[in-house]
């Protein structure tokens, strides 16, 4: 279980002090798939980084499986919007690097690399270098690298945000498949409400300034989730709440220049309700 209790976080920067998170509490059960949505700057990444151990809270505590988080560790893999693969290593070596750091015995490397590269359908590209792969392929390698050391928690910060809709769709299917098979706890940050509803057991919406939890929606839909109707119902519900928050942020950031369009749901270039914010 991931337990976040009464966590607050400030950032001091040249432009002043940002209250990124304000006494946020959240319990995530083992094996749960939780999606975090919310307007830009509401603290989604910060929350994820706290679980990862990349940031420390000002107050409150973060525990993962009853152990307080004090540093990053291979039991909690992180995937970013950019693949963050190492360009001087081949695909295979990138995956092995994670295994080495997690102290997986060398005798197991070969087998694990093969298993996970096959899971993301990139075994054929095991000797390729990063620049020879497309954006979608890179994210799949990053996914394999995250999964290979068998972490208990998978933390994903907008991992598919820079991919086209079709590639993202394929990766949604792959990710759900992998999640079903491995039963890992997943925390998944996204701007895309449709993506959140499609993937998550729970969609948690954060409000901004200061960041706190505004809604915690349980998604009661059978998997795999293809049925547009049910997904659309949840998407519509969450989008309505989100719009209020996004308007608030825009008003604060842009002042009078911001003209909210009443009743109009924001939609991105990828199209569809909640395609992008």
């Amino acid at each position, binding site marked *: 279980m991931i337990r976040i209790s009464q966590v607050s976080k400030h950032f001091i920067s040249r432009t002043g002090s940002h209250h990124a998170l304000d006494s946020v509490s959240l319990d995530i059960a083992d094996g749960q798939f939780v999606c975090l949505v919310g307007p830009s700057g509401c603290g989604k990444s910060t929350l994820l980084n706290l679980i*990862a*151990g*990349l940031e420390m809270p000002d107050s409150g505590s973060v525990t993962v499986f009853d152990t307080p988080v004090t*540093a*990053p*560790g*291979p039991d*909690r*893999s*992180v995937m*970013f919007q*950019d693949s*963050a693969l*190492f*360009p*001087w290593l081949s695909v295979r070596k990138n995956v092995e*690097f*994670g295994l080495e*750091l*997690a102290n997986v015995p060398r005798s197991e490397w070969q087998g694990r690399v093969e298993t996970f590269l096959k899971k993301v359908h990139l075994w054929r590209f095991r000797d390729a*270098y*990063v*620049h*020879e792969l497309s954006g979608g392929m890179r994210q799949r390698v990053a996914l394999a*690298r995250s999964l290979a*050391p068998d972490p208990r928690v998978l*933390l994903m910060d907008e991992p598919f945000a820079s991919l086209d809709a079709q590639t993202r769709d394929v990766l949604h299917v792959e990710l759900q498949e992998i999640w079903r098979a491995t039963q890992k706890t997943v925390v998944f940050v996204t701007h895309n409400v449709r993506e959140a509803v499609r993937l998550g057991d729970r969609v948690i919406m954060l409000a901004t300034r200061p960041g706190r939890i505004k809604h915690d929606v349980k998604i009661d839909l059978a998997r795999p989730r293809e049925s547009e109707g049910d997904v659309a119902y949840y998407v519509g519900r969450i989008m309505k709440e989100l719009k209020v928050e996004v308007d608030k942020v825009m008003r604060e950031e842009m002042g009078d220049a911001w003209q909210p369009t009443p009743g109009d749901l924001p939609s991105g270039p990828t199209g569809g309700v909640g395609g992008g914010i």
Partner: protein
Amino acid sequence: MARSLWEGFSDGTILVGVGVSLRRLFIGYSISLIVGLPLGLGLARSKVLEDSLGTIVTGMQALPSICWLPIALIWFGLSETAILFVVVAGSLFSITIATTAGVRNVPPLLVRAARTMGARGPQLYFRVILPASLPGILSGMRLGWTFAWRSLMAGELLFVSGGLGQLLATGRELRDMSRVLAVMVTIVGLGLLTDVLVFDRLEQRVRERWGTDRA
């Protein structure tokens, strides 16, 4: 001039000069690498080092290497050591600065990703930060080589030393234009040769690996 070049090679004077100069170059350049690379890495990662040595290094780099000659002569006299000193002084700081810049330009996301996988301390440094800054370090090494070469010629020109620089100087005294040109051609040739054979190849390999040759 071609004849001078031929004569110079056949009677051995140019070859001997090349040998003497290259030997100095290798020794001086090696010292610069051995000191400059770790110094650059240290400057990039340690606030204390940066505060105490950063400005000095930047300042020293601005100094044309020949300005070191008087100090070298006072300390070491008209000796081999004095010339090596000039070579090191001329190339060390540019290697240091380029290495520092290379490390500073490592994408922070790569370091974050490595940390989330559990990399810490020396492991993070040698397995991630160092390879990630390789392109920057390589260009620093290349720059350092050029500067070492130039400093050496400047140093050799100014006092009796037996290298290519001295051949230039004697050519000038004899007002033997074709001889001077022949030596200059040799110097350019050597410079090009190392650039193409060593640094071009290394950088090409890194660019292929990184994919930066297809930008």
